[in-house]
């Protein structure tokens, strides 16, 4: 087994190259990946954000040809590390105007590394709908022809037919083509859903990217690396959550526990307990719809993904990947819907047209509350009776929004924009910075309130994910209802760790079994970097979070944007273990800024920027 003695990055997990594609000028070139950047930011999220920062000026429009669309992978991508084929997509969000980093499963990421690149940066705008084909060193832009207008599934099938099985793809659906702010980028049944990355891709008239690679990935010390990858794999195999519960019940395995804790958002976050939670639990989906488990990414031992086959006289037989927990909450409990088939079908429509299920569910829930309160009528909704729990209304609304038809073309603009039309609805417009809220009730898990408020891309749970400890007992658990310094420090630890995962690039769920130690033990023999301890690796995470903040600050975001919907701050939760609670955001936010070394307005202080060596690279 080889040991790399080369001092450059190539052969140390990295390919050492960034591929640039200018669609306007049809120019294609590569640039070396800087070793200092790799050492300080690892790759993936860190590399993507740094490139976005450097390549754009302040206030660049997300749909401008100058806006880069970045596909970044990390040193562990393509190796024997678990879940090592995920891709991090970085750009500016058309929904929020903030930084957008979005993660997609599938096998695209590892293939990009095998083709010889650590990152793909796409700028410009093609003059006709196009597809980008990367075959090792041979990169070219081809007309998309008939592909434009196809659903995500049809497009991928067509590309496979034309180019062959060996190519891995990233595609957008019709929603991305029409620049819907809730459009995602899809790959092999998985997607980078949130924030509208699909719209940015659509604005470049880029339908798809296909990549195939034949070059092996080398690491610094392969023997030692495999030893550590073995430990990581074994740890995941021996951890109850990643070895059993996620496999059997998928991500939905947490639904009943979250509901029990009074934290399952129901009817547009009116309450945290859904009376029909049992009907939409992972257990029930397993019994009725799921037929197969599969790994969505390379070397994933968890296999949380599920294939559902639904047979219903309303829509015939459909096959869909999912539904996952967030989809079940957003199209289920949050709309009062307990019809499993309808939820699965709605998921299917979202996948076909290429939109984010969390945002679409948040939009529908908002519409249902407006309807309940009489602010929006059935006429305006083109005959839809948008009552809570009405599965037919759910299906019809999802179809309209996914296709951008009729009222759908307004609704797809998101809760924040819809609320502007209904002046008294702001209090229950469940969005932060323009992104709809995910499936944890923050009044019953205070840390998630902080998480939603400070996340770089708007309300997102995948950042300072405190729910693991607050609701699921991870690492011994933490009291969900405290909002003191302990909770804030716990949130910061989670956020830093996640940033490391997002830059390596591994799947979030590895953290349900691994600790930072196992990641550290892989990164060292992979890259040969001399991080003294796992604390220094955690520092990389801290650095990346601060860099992300600096980008948002540059784009004009500050403390006033780190808010939560009024419902969470003023309306006490009506039932459950957290009955009577609101989110005590202010003290948490203050403590968060302080602990991060940012000033009272949430702007990183110069000393912190120096301490984290960010001043050397931006």
């Amino acid at each position, binding site marked *: *087994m*080889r040991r790399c003695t080369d001092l450059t990055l190539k052969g140390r997990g990295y390919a050492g190259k960034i591929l640039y594609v200018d669609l306007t000028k049809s120019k294609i070139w590569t640039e070396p990946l800087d070793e200092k950047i790799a050492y300080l930011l690892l790759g993936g999220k860190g590399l993507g954000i740094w490139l976005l920062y450097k390549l754009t000026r302040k206030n660049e429009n997300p749909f401008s040809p100058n806006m880069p669309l970045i596909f970044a992978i990390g040193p562990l991508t*393509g*190796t*024997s590390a678990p879940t090592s084929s995920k891709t991090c997509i970085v750009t500016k969000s058309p929904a929020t105007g903030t930084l957008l980093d979005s993660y997609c499963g599938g096998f695209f990421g*590892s293939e990009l590394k*095998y083709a010889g690149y650590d990152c793909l940066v796409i700028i410009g705008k093609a003059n006709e709908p196009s597809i980008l084909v990367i075959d090792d060193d041979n990169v070219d832009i081809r007309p998309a022809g008939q592909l434009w207008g196809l659903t995500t599934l049809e497009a991928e099938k067509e590309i496979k037919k034309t180019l062959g099985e060996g190519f891995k793809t990233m595609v957008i659906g019709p929603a991305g083509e029409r620049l819907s702010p809730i459009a995602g980028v899809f790959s092999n049944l998985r997607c980078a859903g949130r924030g509208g990355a699909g719209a940015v891709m659509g604005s470049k008239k880029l339908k798809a990217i296909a990549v195939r690679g034949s*070059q*092996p*990935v*080398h*690491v610094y010390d*392969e023997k030692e690396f*495999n030893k550590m990858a*073995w*430990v990581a*794999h*074994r740890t*995941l*195999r*021996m*951890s*109850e959550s990643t*070895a*059993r519960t996620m496999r059997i019940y998928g991500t939905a395995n947490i639904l009943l*526990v979250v509901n*029990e*804790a009074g934290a399952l958002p129901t009817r547009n976050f009116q309450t945290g307990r859904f009376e029909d939670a049992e009907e939409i639990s992972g257990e029930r989906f397993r019994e009725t719809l799921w037929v*197969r488990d*599969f*790994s969505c*990414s*390379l*070397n*994933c*031992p968890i*296999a949380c993904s599920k294939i559902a086959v639904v047979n219903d006289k309303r829509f015939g037989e459909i096959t869909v990947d999912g539904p996952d927990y967030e989809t079940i909450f957003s199209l289920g409990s949050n709309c009062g819907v307990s019809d499993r088939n309808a939820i699965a079908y709605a998921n299917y429509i979202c996948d076909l047209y290429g939109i984010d299920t969390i945002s679409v569910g948040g939009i529908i829930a908002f519409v249902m509350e407006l309807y309940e309160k009489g602010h929006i009528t059935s006429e305006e909704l083109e005959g839809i009776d948008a009552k809570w729990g009405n599965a037919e209304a759910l299906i019809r609304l999802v179809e309209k929004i996914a296709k951008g038809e009729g009222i759908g073309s307004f609704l797809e603009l998101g809760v924040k924009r819809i609320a502007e039309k209904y002046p008294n609805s702001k209090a229950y417009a469940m969005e932060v910075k323009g992104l709809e809220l995910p499936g944890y009730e923050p009044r019953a898990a205070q840390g998630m309130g902080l998480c939603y408020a400070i996340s770089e891309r708007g309300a997102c749970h995948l950042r300072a994910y405190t729910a693991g*400890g607050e609701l*699921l*007992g991870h*690492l*011994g*658990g*933490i*009291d*969900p*209802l405290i909002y003191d310094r*302990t*909770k804030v420090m*716990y949130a910061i*630890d*989670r956020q830093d760790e996640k940033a490391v995962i997002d830059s390596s690039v591994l799947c979030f769920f590895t953290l349900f079994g691994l*600790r*930072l*130690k196992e990641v550290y033990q892989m990164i060292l023999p992979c890259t040969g970097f001399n991080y003294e301890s*796992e*604390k220094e*690796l*955690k520092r990389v995470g801290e650095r990346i979070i601060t860099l992300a903040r600096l980008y948002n600050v540059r784009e004009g975001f500050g403390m006033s944007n780190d808010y939560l919907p009024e419902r969470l701050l003023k309306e006490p939760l009506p039932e459950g*273990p957290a009955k009577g609670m609101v989110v005590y955001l202010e003290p948490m936010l203050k403590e968060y800024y302080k602990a991060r070394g940012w000033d009272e307005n949430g702007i990183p202080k110069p000393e912190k920027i120096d301490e984290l060596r960010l001043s050397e690279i931006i």
Partner: protein
Amino acid sequence: MSVGKNIRMNSIFNPDDGKCVMLPVDHNFLVGPIRGLENVEETLKRALMGRLDAVMVSPGQAKRLAHLFRKRGSPALVIRGDWSNAFREKTYTLPVRSIQEILIAHPRDLLHLGATGAVIYYFVGYGDEEKQAQHYERMRWFIKNCEAVELPCLVTVMPMGEKVSGANFVDFLELGVRMAVEAGADMLEVPYTQDVDTFRRIVAAAKGVPVLCAGGPKAARLRDTLEIVVELLHAGASGVVFGRQVFQSEDPAALLNMLYALVHEGKTVEEVLGLIGRRIRLKTLAEKCIGCRLCEIICSSSHGSSFSMGKARLRIREAQGKYVISTCTLCGLCAKACPVGAIKVNVELGRLEFNEEKCIGCGKCVEACPTEVLKLDEKGKPLICDRCQGDPQCVRWCPVEAIIAEVY
């Protein structure tokens, strides 16, 4: 060490090698009724047919099941003196909001129940410092009173609490071990840190106090469990406290005997599993396959091609919503097709042998391969499956045992 304590320690740890195989069955009052312990007496009866040194029980179990431990040569009895809610599982029960640990017996009470040793938890990592101090005080009080009646005290050290995170788990474990040693613990139980180097740190921190390793939730693969035992012994551990690994397996006594062989007889995993010098073939169970392709990546790496999907000696394909696993079935058609005899079938060992120098790169072997698994590398030479010289890596790494090695 005093006479009484010495006798008891030698009952728990075999005096010839200082090691111990301990079976805990006290889970029910800590985590709720779990699989394998629905009927503790039945489980214990089955397990006691295997070889072990000690059993860990609750005071109630010690009282009720005393008749099982009356025989000569019965395992030593280690009785738990505390209770905690920290291990409550999340399924169908609310996870804990506040970690609690309380003493439920005076060491004298445990002595009266026939204890050879006592066991309590020590958690380190509480957010509330007063709570941390109180736990330390409780631990010292308990150990002091154990000392008064010559009862050896086992402390189970666990990083637990708001301060514990992914980055400091091992640090907290090390701190907790030092704290327990200084409080007078006679033996320690710790979770495995998942690798030898960090575990060595923990053993070193114990300064000579014997360290036993906890088993945790049942591993899906027997081989993982056994390999971990060898690793931790290598790192200086004095044995294991394996509960679920044992009583959630199909044959608890057989598993205990394997553990005993590893811990007390220095056997290797291959010896215990009966793999030495046996002829094996690859058996595939495609319905188990989850399509992760780790087998292909590790095959490539094990044969010197680093990480590359195209260099594997096996292939996973997706067809009609199912996965198909193609491996070398040792049909020998490639050997027959080879015009220069570069490929030979070694019938005795059950694998192909490839002479690279003889190979002329004609590719006839690839054409002949019925499973379409055989490929050529960039030099035009076939990538021959050699069963990794008897320890197939695809088998070793497959997370769901969709490829297994069958002795024939």
